[in-house]
């Protein structure tokens, strides 16, 4: 008796939920084995994880802080995936978002918050979109594979960051303060450029709220508008789209720019919410790989923007728990294993 594996004609609704839940359960089971093998009590560890991620004092806030950049990069990846465009460049577009929003923040240094903050958002989105348009243009007019180009441009973006702070006397670099003479850093933004937070017991960064707004916006855009209709058709069958008279090239440019703008917005949130200066340190922003994790977030969420919010939140919690658990009796390698 041979077993043939065939594609299902339709994907039952329950399966779209059951598969991620099932894999998550399996992952927990597998990690339990690893924990047992290394002499930890799985049940207690899981309780600690939950405690550290969501229950402990201030834990929820820290989780949201971790989730915010993942929310943006996840949405950015999901927005492009909807049209079968693989934007792996969220990382570089996020860097450009920090450059653009820091520039806006520095330029408008004397202005009040309601002027500076929208300008930072716009600056971040514009810079991210511009960086994403490079692979988009190559894809639309020369059929260059956007996976390769957008990925390679991440390294270019990283080098540009280094250049701006370490290798030049750019507009972003602080060359006056005493500490900057010892180690090159970016100029600090004015207090008005710090984004406000909401809530007191649980502090919600403004960026996270904007991210939820973006998720809703993307959902409406893709499910309810002509633009979204075209994106769906092109994503499913480019030939059918061309047959129906759709302008495929323009859509590639638009969707990649949208994706880049969302990643850039993530960069703006990094500056406005958390860092308040352009961070080029290889051990700083660049060490986290938010752009790459965002691809994982989008894939886990099956490119559904609302699911991206949920997954980003859960992964943020896991990261947070990981750094709390890490200690003398819990090696960081094990933490990394559990997170993967």
């Amino acid at each position, binding site marked *: 008796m041979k077993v043939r594996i065939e594609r299902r004609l339709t994907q039952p609704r329950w399966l779209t939920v059951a598969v991620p839940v099932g894999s998550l359960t399996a992952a927990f089971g597998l990690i339990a084995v690893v924990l047992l093998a290394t002499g930890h009590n799985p049940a207690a560890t899981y309780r600690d994880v939950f405690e550290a991620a969501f229950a402990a004092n201030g834990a929820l806030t820290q989780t949201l802080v971790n989730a915010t950049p993942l929310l943006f990069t996840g949405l950015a990846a999901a927005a492009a995936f909807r049209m079968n465009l693989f934007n792996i460049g969220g990382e570089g577009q996020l860097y450009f978002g920090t450059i653009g929003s820091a520039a806006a923040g520095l330029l408008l240094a004397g202005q009040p918050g309601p002027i500076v903050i929208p300008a930072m958002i716009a600056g971040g989105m514009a810079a991210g979109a511009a960086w994403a348009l490079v692979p988009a243009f190559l894809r639309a007019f020369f059929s260059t594979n956007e996976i390769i180009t957008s990925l390679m441009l991440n390294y270019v973006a990283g080098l540009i960051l280094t250049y701006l702070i370490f290798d030049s006397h750019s507009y972003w670099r602080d060359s006056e303060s005493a500490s900057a003479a010892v180690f090159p850093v970016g100029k600090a933004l004015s207090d008005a450029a710090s984004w406000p937070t909401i809530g007191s017991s649980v502090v919600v960064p403004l960026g996270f709220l904007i991210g939820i707004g973006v998720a809703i916006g993307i959902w409406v855009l893709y499910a309810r508008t002509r633009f979204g209709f075209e994106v769906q058709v092109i994503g*499913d069958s480019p030939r059918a789209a061309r047959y*129906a008279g759709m302008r495929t090239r323009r859509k590639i440019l638009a969707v990649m720019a949208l994706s880049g703008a969302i990643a850039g917005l993530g960069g703006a949130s990094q500056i406005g919410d958390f860092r308040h200066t352009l961070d080029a340190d290889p051990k700083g922003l660049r060490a986290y790989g938010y752009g790459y994790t965002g691809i994982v977030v989008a894939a886990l969420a099956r490119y559904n923007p609302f699911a991206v919010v949920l997954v980003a939140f859960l992964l943020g919690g896991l990261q947070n728990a990981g750094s709390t658990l890490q200690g003398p009796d819990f090696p960081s390698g094990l933490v990394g294993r559990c997170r993967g």
Partner: protein
Amino acid sequence: MSQATDPGPTAAIACKGITKRFPGVIANEDVDFDARAGEVHALLGENGAGKSTLSNIFTGLYQPDEGELWLAGRRAVFQSPREAIAAGVGMVHQHFRLVEPFTVAENIMLGDHRDIGRSFRIHPREIERRVAEIAERYGLAVDPKARIWQLSVGEQQRVEILKALFREARVLILDEPTAVLTPQEASSLFVTLRAMAAEGRTVIFISHKLHEVKAVADRVTVLRGGRSVATVEAADATPQSLASLMVGREIEVNRRRERGGEIGAAVLEVVGVSAGGDRGLEALRDVSLTVRAGEIVGVAGVAGNGQRELAEAVTGLRPLTRGSVRVGDRVLRGGDPREAIRAGVAHVPEDRLHTAVAPSLSIGSNVVLKSYRGTTVTHGPMLLLKRIHDTAAHLIRSYDVKAPGTTTPARQLSGGNLQKVVLGREFSGEPRVLIAASPTRGLDIGAIETVHRYLREAADRGVAILLISEDLDEVLALADRVAVMYEGQIVGEVDAGSASVEEIGLLMAGGRAA
């Protein structure tokens, strides 16, 4: 295993009670079949009737769930195609299994595991000599040293037949072999098949073309819905009686169209159009033709002679290198499908599943695939989902589409129902011109009848129709005039009412009209 169930010593290949189930479908149910040595036996049936499944069981690709297979009076069980080949069952598939850069002799040697084919060294001379010998005996003219890509489709088919003969096939199964041939090539194939039968071999000829079955077969077994419904002597059958057996009800085959409307002014004018092909070579050369309102102009030709490119050039999918396309009083720049759609050009493309529709999207989305830019289903940038649903539901009702609902993905529809959706959508745009490329390919007789009716009705309403089809019967039944394409050019135009199949066949093969 008693000899009592032996279907008879005369049967070269036979099966009893074959049932094959796939998840959700029964492809073959209790099929009885027997073909004698020295006969050409046609296997006739609509798409999905179970012809391919049955032949795959004969050639060892599938194992039947129930029933038994007999070969020359002995029970046979094939675990793999290789065992079937070793037992002398060969097959010529519809899509050839040939390695293009290799020579004819190399292809024939490939996968042969007997004597010289088995040795580490290859002996091209020896193979070439034997191939030439067989080719001569059966009138299969092919140069054994030629490379496959240099050969025409008809010649490639001969290579496939040679391959089977070289492996000493006693039973040869051909899956719709004439689909890619001109009428002349088809009749020379029939001569070959008869010669093989005269030698005592068995030829199983799979087809859904009734007149071919009449022309070449001794007996015909008709499959319908996975069951064998009848085996009849070809001499006693008529196309009408065979069609009724196939479909299970009375049906009219390819009756010549009677004109309902008047022919009006020229609507589509193609003047001196040239266009490149996919491989960079020129695929269309200086093509000119005119279609008037209410007229159906057929474009006949062997597949790959520029018909697809012509359809794409007129509908804006392929840029023109020279010439112009005029629709009504608008001259199209070419290369822009939206421009053609606006000018009133509807298009039923050859590739139904990936060009005519976005297969994973709903029927609803596919119904508004072109009209989403208009104001009926949108308000500003927003889609009106309710209106889309209503439009699709209306189309499903008026075109009698068998579908669970408007949200069903298009790819779940059968070919006939999908084509109804496409036709319904294209007609809803009130077109002036319709380009229909192989609109009935792969459909069953019932659906073909429906599609033909819609095309006739559209012509009667005054739509100018360009019907591109490789099925000559279809072209002759529907068209007023027939243009024949060969190597990217229109080599002749004949009146469909008075032209003979032979005359058109000659043009299709490249012979100029006298």
